[in-house]
């Protein structure tokens, strides 16, 4: 490696970290793995923000809750699900499993000084929110139509009462997305990497180069 070469400081989006830690059972694992492989190969520094970690923990709790739901038999009733949701045991299991997994992730990352860097007492300027607002005001997203689908068996079914089978939603880059970008810039990162195609809308508009895998 050329000693004069500047070490690339890469900001990773939450989807990359979580997908990598979930392993091959995640659809995007191989794409996420490329980021880490490249960091090893080219000696990149992966910048970890506290905001990203906060979102990652919440994502993990969602994944583990969804796992529990999917492990239930088909035909589970609303009454049974409410009883489960209200039970202390269920909450404890999800909380402990997700915290144990996430603690392990934090343990591994903090031990690896060669590849991971963490923000320390970063002072954020309120202007970053103004910049995000200005940016968002100049952009407009897209509309998407989604068919109704059962979360359990994943079959598409119309509403049993009115017969409607789809809904229309507005999809666009959003406040958390822009906040990630602003944080990456504040932390002096040289690249922002994500697997979310929505970020393509701001590549070339924001200062930091955005790579959508």
């Amino acid at each position, binding site marked *: 490696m050329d000693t004069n070469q500047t070490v690339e400081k890469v900001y990773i989006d939450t989807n990359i970290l979580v997908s990598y830690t979930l392993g091959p059972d995640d659809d995007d694992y191989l794409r996420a793995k490329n980021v880490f492989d490249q960091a090893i190969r080219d000696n990149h520094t992966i910048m970890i923000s506290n905001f990203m970690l906060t979102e990652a923990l919440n994502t993990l709790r969602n994944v583990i809750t969804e796992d529990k739901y999917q492990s239930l038999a088909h035909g589970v009733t609303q009454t049974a699900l409410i009883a489960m949701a209200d039970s202390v045991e269920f909450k404890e299991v999800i909380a402990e499993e997700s*915290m144990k997994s996430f603690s*392990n992730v934090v343990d591994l990352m903090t*031990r690896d000084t060669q590849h991971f860097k963490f923000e320390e007492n970063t002072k954020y300027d309120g202007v970053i929110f103004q910049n995000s607002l200005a940016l968002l005001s100049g952009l407009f997203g897209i509309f998407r139509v989604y068919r109704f689908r059962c979360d359990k068996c994943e079959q598409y079914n119309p509403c049993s009462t009115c017969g409607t089978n789809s809904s229309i939603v507005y999809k666009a880059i959003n406040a958390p997305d822009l906040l990630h970008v602003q944080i990456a810039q504040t932390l002096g990162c040289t690249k922002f990497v994500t697997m979310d195609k929505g970020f393509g809308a701001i590549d070339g508009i924001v200062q930091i180069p955005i790579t959508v895998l």
Partner: protein
Amino acid sequence: MSSLGCKLDSLVPQPSSFFETMANLGRLIGDLLNDIYGKITKPLGQFSLGSILTQTEEMQRQVLGGSFGTETFNSRLSLRAIFGLSSSFEDNPKAIEQLSGSVKRATKRKTNVTRLIRNMRDYDGY
């Protein structure tokens, strides 16, 4: 029990180092003396228990932080403290590989985390 209300101590091994033991002991004695003698420890200056405690913690930082560099050592410690992880840890450049698939799950259900996070950020459908 951590401040987050989770039983992290039972989940994560908590090996204590010599420095941790010293720091904890110093803190315990310092608290006790402060309760009994009030302001006595303050005029002791550099020989006060508070000072010794600070020096012990600083020594720990220097010894452990040596291989980490000072720049991010404190941020690593702070982060580990949030999750109840030990302040004694060794540098492991292979950890990045161990991170792959490190989350153990109850099912082999396929996930699409990118879509899940997109939905979380959009908060759609609910």
